[in-house]
């Protein structure tokens, strides 16, 4: 029988101690809920669930402020949750008299969404805060819970701000919107149902820009027959800023 070398015995003992120690330590150090559902501490899920809620959610507001809620639900602001303007209110729900959410009384809050910004989607109501009735608090004309305009807008720019801004610095600045667009009666109150009319033909632009047009000589003229061949004018020239080639 071959003799087991002395080295193997001493090393074997050492390794057994080390491995044994590791196995025991592992038993001791692995958290008890580890691996229950997967390679993680199952208790962590419960702990994360226990995180404090800061925003109560609009349904909680409805329980007491149903009148305002119902009014808002019919308005343009139906998708704007109460806590967007009034701030997180979970503490108010818990202690209705002790913690009162702020009632914004300035122009800043409204401007966050409604100040003019070019990347905003077309049709989203925007104003230029600095020019729109400066000094007046928004609330004095618009009810935030039902922001339908107190009176029909006087100018197209109230809604079509982006176009208005472009046009105002273009060579078409002096033209009224109605010069080119026909505006049906109902457009001011329900715009989507009553869309405005747009020019259809080259000849429309030709009223000013054709060589034989009966207008001021300062206006740029082209030969309507040859210029741009069969293309429609607005395929090359953006009418609200006609020098831009897009």
């Amino acid at each position, binding site marked *: 029988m071959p003799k087991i070398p002395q080295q193997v015995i001493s090393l074997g003992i050492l390794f057994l101690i080390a491995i044994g120690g590791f196995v025991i330590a592992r038993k001791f150090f692995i*958290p008890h809920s*580890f691996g229950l*559902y*997967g*390679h*993680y*501490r199952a208790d*962590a*899920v419960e*702990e*994360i*669930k*226990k*995180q*404090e*809620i*800061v*925003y109560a*959610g*609009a349904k909680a507001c409805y329980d007491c402020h149903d009148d305002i809620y119902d009014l808002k639900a019919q308005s343009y*602001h139906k*998708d*704007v*949750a109460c*806590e*967007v303007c009034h701030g*997180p209110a979970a503490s108010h729900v818990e202690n209705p008299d002790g913690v009162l959410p702020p009632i914004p009384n300035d122009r800043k809050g409204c401007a*966050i*969404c409604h*100040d003019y*910004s*070019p*990347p*905003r*989607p077309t049709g*989203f109501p925007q104003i230029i805060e600095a020019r729109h009735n400066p000094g007046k608090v928004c609330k004095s004309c618009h009810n935030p819970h039902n922001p339908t305009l107190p009176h029909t807008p006087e100018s197209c720019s109230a809604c079509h701000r982006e176009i208005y801004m472009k046009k105002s610095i273009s060579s078409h600045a002096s033209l009224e919107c109605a010069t080119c667009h026909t505006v049906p009666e109902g457009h001011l109150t329900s715009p989507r149902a009553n869309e405005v009319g747009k020019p259809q033909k080259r000849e429309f632009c030709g009223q000013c820009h054709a060589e034989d047009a009966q207008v001021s000589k300062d206006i740029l003229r082209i030969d309507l027959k040859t210029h741009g061949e069969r293309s429609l004018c607005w395929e090359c020239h953006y009418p609200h800023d006609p020098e*831009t080639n*897009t």
Partner: protein
Amino acid sequence: MKKENKKHLGRRQFLKKCAKAVCTGLLLSFVEFKNVWAKQVGNGDKSAERKYAMGIDIHKCIGCGRCADACKKENKVPREPHYFRTWIERYIVPIKGEPVVDSPNGGIDGFPELKGDKGILKMFFVPKLCNHCAHPPCVQVCPVGATFTSRDGVVLVDPKYCVGCRYCIQACPYGARYMHPEKHVADKCTFCYHRITKGLLPACVEVCPTKARIFGEVDNPTSPIRRFARLHTITVLKPSLNTEPMVLYAGAEGMVR
């Protein structure tokens, strides 16, 4: 010379032992490999159901930054400008050339006005957050199991177990993770797990004034996310990485990444 002989004998034994060791190793690794394979290719992992999803409609986002602000308040994210669970990017696409992107303070304070927009083709906003991937690279690389996919498919971080090695931050293709400056652990969006498990909406969805963010349960036929996915052409971010995000974008162009 005597030594030489012994050496040769020894070598044969070593080779035998080596072969044995290699075989066992291969067998063991094959078992593990099968698991990994199943998980990565994505047909064997039934443990995590993908219950929740978020939809983001680029055409509706007005870049007001209320979502990023509410997220910081709800989840006590440090207010400093370099820690975000969600943020908004502004894409400025010129007529020619690469789009320019910015996100000052995550969009919370609005976006600076642009001087002279002559060469601009279009602009839009893109809200970003953790994509709660079905194959999360962050979970894959976490050495201790401190970040994981919960049984309802939400990718979470266990702040009491994270060692703070930051490997997950490196592995996230979306920049959705950060090192919490006080807790010294990785932190990220939880889909507001404490809210959604109680029937509330995530804070960012709650406060979005234009419904640019939609949230719901995928399996529920009346859930808004189902309607969202049905009515829009859906894309996800960086699809080539095969992470299978659960944040679905409508109207996001290929340039968004």
